[in-house]
């Protein structure tokens, strides 16, 4: 599987590199759909310049990234050469090992294919795949970026972030699929499924390509490409969330807690992913979700402690790096109170531009609570299926967050192939895909009519924003319904009958 993945990475990197070089890059990085005030590269450059001058980057109202992020960029920009030399050396050393390793891996692969344990790759094999892909990626980066000037080196950072996200998603979906298959086998052995739902079961053949499709959906999604070419820091946030998912699915509670804290630190909203991660670990350790059991409380507290502890450490670290608490109001206050009303694909800007000033606090509470509000009912409904819950949460965050961009949308869309078995239960997929497609095309058109031609106005653009979000909500709701319906069918049989014998339909309540 490493070969197609490597090919995919190379294609993705090449597309991005070509776009970086073309004149489109500047155009894309000015699009409001692609960059938000939070993650615009232009603002990061401003922050870096302030930092270089020894001024707090948060003085003024331009920069809203977190301190760790700006120090990361600071480091990349200043020590770019060292990074490159190290990576080049790394590549040279390892490239001679490449061939034999590949052959060894092939041998392992073929052995396992024969022995019918399709999903039981040993860890070393996985590690080798990792290495090969990273090496090839670096090779390409080396070619593409050796002769670039200051600040443009950061392109590499964004490309790598996208690559890491895709890899992490790939590996986590692979792990997840193994898990699902194992569970399905146990359930079949213990006869928990009803007899006539054999066609609902998932076969290894069908599941084999899903991780690759997930990686492809992320890397070749135009939304991700746009976001990467615009050098939006959204790609890095996505990478952190993807790594968090990977660590969670691998079962490492400590790493998962740290990464979740990091994601929260970046943009607060991933806070809601705490619930699915906890549920996943509880399920993994066979601890029932029972409020009266001490083992439940023990683990919950343990995980919460890891999470809060690392959050405190990270925040403290930023304080020591920066020497002030300036970043708290400038980053989190900015996210919560939504002072920047630049139009974007979200729901906030228009409402907040229209409303009276003295309702502002009330409405920002109402709007922000949307993100967190769905966590509890969804966690209760989906407590057996934490990975699907993660997907739902990410989608909800990207719809209801205060400064959404297409990069956020791309992250949850990458999960869609993982639910391809739900396809037969989806009801509105045609409508939704038409709406999303049309909206993506109409965004720039209506922006042009509003801003440049002056013949349309903000209402036109907001109408499209509303429609786009409506499409997204419909999509997520449709998948939610389909997932629950499949689970229902698995236990109750595919062909449901009402009491009087007529065919019954399921209603989501």
């Amino acid at each position, binding site marked *: 599987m490493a070969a197609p993945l490597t090919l995919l990475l190379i294609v993705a990197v090449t597309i991005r590199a070509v776009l970086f070089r073309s004149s489109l890059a500047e155009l894309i990085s000015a699009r409001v759909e692609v960059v938000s005030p939070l993650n615009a590269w232009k603002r990061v450059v401003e922050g870096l310049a302030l930092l270089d001058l020894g001024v707090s980057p948060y003085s003024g109202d331009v920069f809203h990234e977190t301190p760790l992020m700006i120090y990361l960029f600071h480091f990349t920009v200043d020590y770019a050469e060292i990074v490159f030399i190290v990576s080049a050396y790394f590549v040279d050393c390892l490239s001679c090992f490449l061939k034999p390793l590949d052959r060894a891996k092939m041998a392992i692969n073929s052995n396992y294919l024969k022995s019918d344990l399709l999903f039981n790759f040993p860890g070393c094999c996985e590690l080798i795949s990792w290495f090969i892909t990273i090496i090839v990626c670096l090779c390409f980066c080396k070619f593409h970026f050796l002769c670039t000037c200051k600040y443009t080196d950061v392109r590499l950072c964004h490309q790598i972030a996208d690559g890491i996200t895709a890899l992490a998603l790939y590996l986590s979906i692979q792990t997840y699929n193994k898990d699902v298959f194992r569970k399905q086998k146990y359930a079949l052995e213990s006869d928990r499924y009803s007899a006539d739902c054999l*066609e609902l079961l998932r076969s290894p053949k*069908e599941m084999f390509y899903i991780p690759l499709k997930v990686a492809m959906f992320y890397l070749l999604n135009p939304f991700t490409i746009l976001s990467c070419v615009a050098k939006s820091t959204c790609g890095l946030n996505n990478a952190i969330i993807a790594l968090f998912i990977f660590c969670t699915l691998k079962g490492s509670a400590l790493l998962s807690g740290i990464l979740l804290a990091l994601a929260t630190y970046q943009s607060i909203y991933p806070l809601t992913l705490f619930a699915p991660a906890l549920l996943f670990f509880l399920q993994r350790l066979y601890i029932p979700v029972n409020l009266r059991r001490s083992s439940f409380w023990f683990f919950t507290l343990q995980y919460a402690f890891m999470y809060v502890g690392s959050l405190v450490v990270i925040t403290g670290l930023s304080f020591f790096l920066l020497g002030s608490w300036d970043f708290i109001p400038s980053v989190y206050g900015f996210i919560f109170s939504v002072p920047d009303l630049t139009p974007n694909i979200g729901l906030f800007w228009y409402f907040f531009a229209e409303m009276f000033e003295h309702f502002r606090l009330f409405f920002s509470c109402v709007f922000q609570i949307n993100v967190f509000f769905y966590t509890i009912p969804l966690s209760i409904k989906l407590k057996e299926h934490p990975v699907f819950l993660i997907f739902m949460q990410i989608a909800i965050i990207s719809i209801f967050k205060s400064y959404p961009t297409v990069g956020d949308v791309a992250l949850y869309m990458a999960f869609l192939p993982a639910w*391809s078995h739900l396809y*037969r239960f989806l009801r509105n997929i*045609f409508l939704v895909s038409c709406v999303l*497609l049309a909206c993506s*095309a109409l965004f720039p*058109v209506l922006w042009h009519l509003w801003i440049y*031609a002056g013949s349309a106005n903000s209402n036109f653009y907001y109408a499209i924003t509303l429609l786009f979000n409506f499409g997204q909500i419909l999509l997520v709701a449709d998948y939610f319904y389909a997932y629950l319906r499949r689970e229902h069918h698995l236990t109750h049989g595919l062909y449901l009958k009402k009491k009087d014998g007529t065919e019954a339909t399921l209603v989501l309540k």
Partner: protein
Amino acid sequence: RGLLTRLNTPICIVCYLAAIVWFMGLAFEPFTLRTDMSENAMGSTMVLLRGASAVPRQGVRSSQKTGAVSTWLVKAMQSRGLEVFTQSFSRKLPFPDENKERYMVRGTNVYGILRAPRAPRTEALVISAPCSPGDSNNQAVGLLLALAQYFRNQVYWAKDIIFLVNEHDLMGTQAWLEAYHHTNITGMEYSPLQGRGGSIQAALSLELSSDVITSLDLILDGLNGQLPNLDLANLFYAFCQKLGVLCTIQGKLQRNDWDTAEGYTHAAQTMMLMVLKQACGRSWGDHGLFLRYHIEAASVRGINSFRHYKTDAATIGRLLEGMVRKLNNLLERLHQSYFFYLLPSLSRFVSIGCYMPAFGLLVVILLLRALDLWVHLGAPALAAVEGVTEAQQPSGPAVLTVLTPVVISHLTGVALYLLPVHLQEMAVEHFPVSETEAVVLTAVAIYTTGLALPHNTQRLLSGEGTEQGWKVLKLTALLYLAVLLGCTALINFSLGFVLAVTLVPITASMTPHMPKALSALVMVLLSPAFTILYCVFIYQELIEAPVSVSEGWMLFLSVISQGILDHALYGSLVYPLLALFIYPCWLMFWNILFWS
């Protein structure tokens, strides 16, 4: 949903007919709205008109003989107390323009600024008159100078007034506007402006083709079919009424007998003319380029149609004075009235809400067909008892079969966009044609070669195209076309509608199972290039100058070269749209027809 699939074809036909009928009905007077001044600042207060007199056109004429128009203009403007500046520009066209006989263009714009005595000079108005060699427009330049002299002595100006005399019509305007706004979109070389007023609120362009004026024609269609705010047209109409000047739009006088057949035909013709002019996306007067910079602008053209009733220059001067004074009263940019409209006559208009349904009905056909295909595609997958594995299997190759035609047709589109201009030298070397002909004929040749391609792509793909393959391709192409037409219609309704009328019927009904020769013929006859050809004929018919087939063909070729030039010089988007999107999309349907 079941009903929609069963009655799909009848519904589509009904939709198409309804769209045509709706569109034709738009010209019927009871369905249209009266134009009404919406801007308060221009509404109730009537200005007292005094009028400028004594038009010094002799000077213009004599100076043109000696060939020193710009120096004479500078002197003339200075003597009228304006701050005068000149701007020189030069531009090498990608290939010679045979209609206007120019290739290496070099010219000078002269403009004078009348500073506003009553306000902080943050806003400006522009009155422009194109002045080309030959005495085609010297009447207008004379009138401009007379107005400048008169305006100079008035105290009520709250906005700077810029009097612009531009050479080489649109190119001069383009150079001046780009320099004014510090942009350079089209790679023109120009000297920077030395003097500058505030942000330009509105502009009027003046063209008087002869000494004797019987009526005034208002031109609104700008670049890419952009229109100025309807209030500008209202303003013009109101003053024409007040001063008793005959005013026309699209060269058609308004008739009052809407309830007779002739009256309706007249209105319909006027509207059709507007649709065709707007659809071709070029700027029909100097004002068209102002619209890009968010400046409301219109051209006023004097026409001598040999009627008895004549309008003297003083009346036109009063008319312009009135319009400029009303614009001077504006507190903010014109925004109250409509930006999207069609005009069956000057006093009546059709707003976006009224005409969009006609277009919507056409796009609904595409969506209905797509839905139908979707249901057909989904049905066998659900019926298969083996379920998911069976349905998943063909999806891999299906994506590939769709991707290849899409990529190939788009590459043809890119070739159609890039090659004509780049290959002209080679074509001129090898064939006995001029550069312009070379460009146009290369475009036509590439267009025709594109038709031969699909046969090859199918074989390259190795293996038979499946039933599912073309359905997926058609589904993609239908959605693509629907989105494409929708976006086009939002920016330029007329273009979107004209394309939809010709493309929708054939694309909606196309399958590989139709008789090949006949449907191929029909398809070619309804292709984008033929749409342009029909538009040329209809346009000529409507302006009452019908042409023979050979003349029509020559016109068609010149329209193509003008389209390419408009794109290169002013950034008109029609040519790239057709070459890069519409044509490849049409090729995809062509591909379906020859699916084997």
